[in-house]
């Protein structure tokens, strides 16, 4: 009858006396081998497809994936930027012909100056050659009239 009363109390979840509590603790200790049974049950993990589906749902809910880490890309990017800067610097420092503006007074002046230079080189400088400008020469004085007479 003692067992009946005890069981009834456990089923009804009524408050136990100190003595009954001690008895329950003792009974729990005696049945603790059931842990091994429960822990021995095969475990099963959800599949990767299940996990992917969960990830999609979480992202839809507003999960913020971390930005990808730069890792090794950062030094590469820095080297690239440095190389570009160097190339640009070298380009800017190289001697280059200055192109005249396409239109305006300055371009007209430049064009006029160029034409004048060309004309001077072709005509004026050519006329200044001494053989052409001087009618007398020390060499021609050596020839006599007979030698100058045509045959």
């Amino acid at each position: 009858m003692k067992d009946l009363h005890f069981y009834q109390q456990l089923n009804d979840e009524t408050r136990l006396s100190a003595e009954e509590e001690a008895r329950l603790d003792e009974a729990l200790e005696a049945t603790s081998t059931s842990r091994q049974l429960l822990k021995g049950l095969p475990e099963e993990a959800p599949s990767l497809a299940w996990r992917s589906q969960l990830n999609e749902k979480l992202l839809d809910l507003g999960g913020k994936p971390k930005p990808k880490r730069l890792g090794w890309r950062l030094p590469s990017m820095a080297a690239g930027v440095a190389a570009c800067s160097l190339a640009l610097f070298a380009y800017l420092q190289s001697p280059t012909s200055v192109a005249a503006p396409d239109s305006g007074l300055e371009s007209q002046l430049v064009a006029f100056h160029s034409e004048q230079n060309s004309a001077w080189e072709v005509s004026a400088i050519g006329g200044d050659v001494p053989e052409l400008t001087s009618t007398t020469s020390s060499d021609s004085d050596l020839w006599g009239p007979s030698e100058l007479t045509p045959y």
Partner: protein
Amino acid sequence: MSVYLGATRLDYHPGLDSQTDQALIEQCRKRDFEAFGKVVDAYQSRVYGFVKRMVRDSEDALDVTQEVFIRAFQAFDRFDGRSSLRTWLFRIAHNLCIDRSRRTKRQVESVSLITQTEDGDTAYDIPDVRWNPEETLIQEELIQLTEQALATMSEKLRTVLLMHDSEDLSYEEIAQILAVPVGTVKSRLFLARNHLKATIEAYRKEGNIS
């Protein structure tokens, strides 16, 4: 991963330690997807194992387990850290299992431990000696019988048995999850273990084992 009977798992605690928990919790509160992924990795198998034995259907269990993590992700900013992350996840899992059970109206017919003797008296099975089921049954049978016992016990008893004996939650943690006194947890655990024992004993008496 499958672990079978005989291979002691008493010290087997997959999951996260409390320090890692704390670091992850802070990140999860900020809705850090990667940090929450680590929480899922750490607890998905345990939560799924619990839910599967509660709802007794693999497909439903997968859905409910997903729902557990979705709810946790949504409610992380309200997680106050008074309980452990594991306890909190199992509370969500338990609530969802109860909700689902109410929706499906699936009632579990529990097997009474009280049996009638030949002279009409009622016999009660209060164990007074240590019970060693492994001495008499082979592992596969024990697995089957344990699953059978879980399936036939009431939801209340099953919850406590799984949380305590499978998931190693303390009496206090279980009491907190179920919002019942610690004494009630102990009572239910005792009744659940007795149900398990009765199932195995009945199988043995039927002569199914040598």
